[in-house]
């Protein structure tokens, strides 16, 4: 299994509070991704990173920010959580830029915003 750890695995928070989800990898992979999975929507890309301090937006980036200060860590922050951000969040890593390099996913973080 690829060395990806997401923390926390479960979180319940209140509307308006800041939340940070952490993705840690031990593979030294360059590319890291944050996806959210929702019923009826599948997997949607929030943000991704192609190197330390190099990040870009995905299709559902509003309300989210990311940071990558080290190769191994990619943080996803909800500045002010809303109920629409209740979801399962998956981190993924890839060694190279092309899809021939497989995407490996973490086990997910279940976030509930009340």
């Amino acid at each position: 299994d690829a060395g990806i750890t997401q923390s926390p695995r479960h979180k319940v928070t209140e509307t308006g509070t800041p939340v940070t989800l952490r993705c840690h990898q031990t593979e030294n992979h360059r590319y890291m991704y944050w996806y959210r999975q929702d019923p009826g929507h599948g997997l949607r890309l929030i943000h991704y990173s192609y190197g330390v301090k190099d990040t870009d937006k995905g299709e559902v980036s509003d309300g989210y920010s990311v940071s990558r200060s080290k190769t191994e860590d990619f943080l996803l922050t909800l500045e002010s959580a809303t109920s629409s951000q209740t979801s399962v969040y998956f981190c993924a890593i890839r060694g190279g830029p092309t899809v021939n390099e497989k995407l490996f996913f973490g086990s997910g973080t279940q976030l509930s915003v009340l």
Partner: protein
Amino acid sequence: DQQVKQNSPSLSVQEGRISILNCDYTNSMFDYFLWYKKYPAEGPTFLISISSIKDKNEDGRFTVFLNKSAKHLSLHIVPSQPGDSAVYFCAASGSQGGSEKLVFGKGTKLTVNP
């Protein structure tokens, strides 16, 4: 605008029979296609892929077929086993979207009955 469509949210088959999962895409620039499998409470895992230069790729019980003219691909599982019960995501990538990003469908939940 959904670029990758999995129009069947669920599929139920008997053990030993063939499972056929379908996926349609709209972006003619997509040139690489993948299937991921997801069990509950786990992250998605790579299953099989196909490049647009091929029309078939086989890996054990799993075969993916690509019909470029119809912008359609399908995943065949023969014979189906109860352990194949999972959600299957179709994903696509291409030069227009940037090869570092995958676009996922909404998923099809496969249930294989003993």
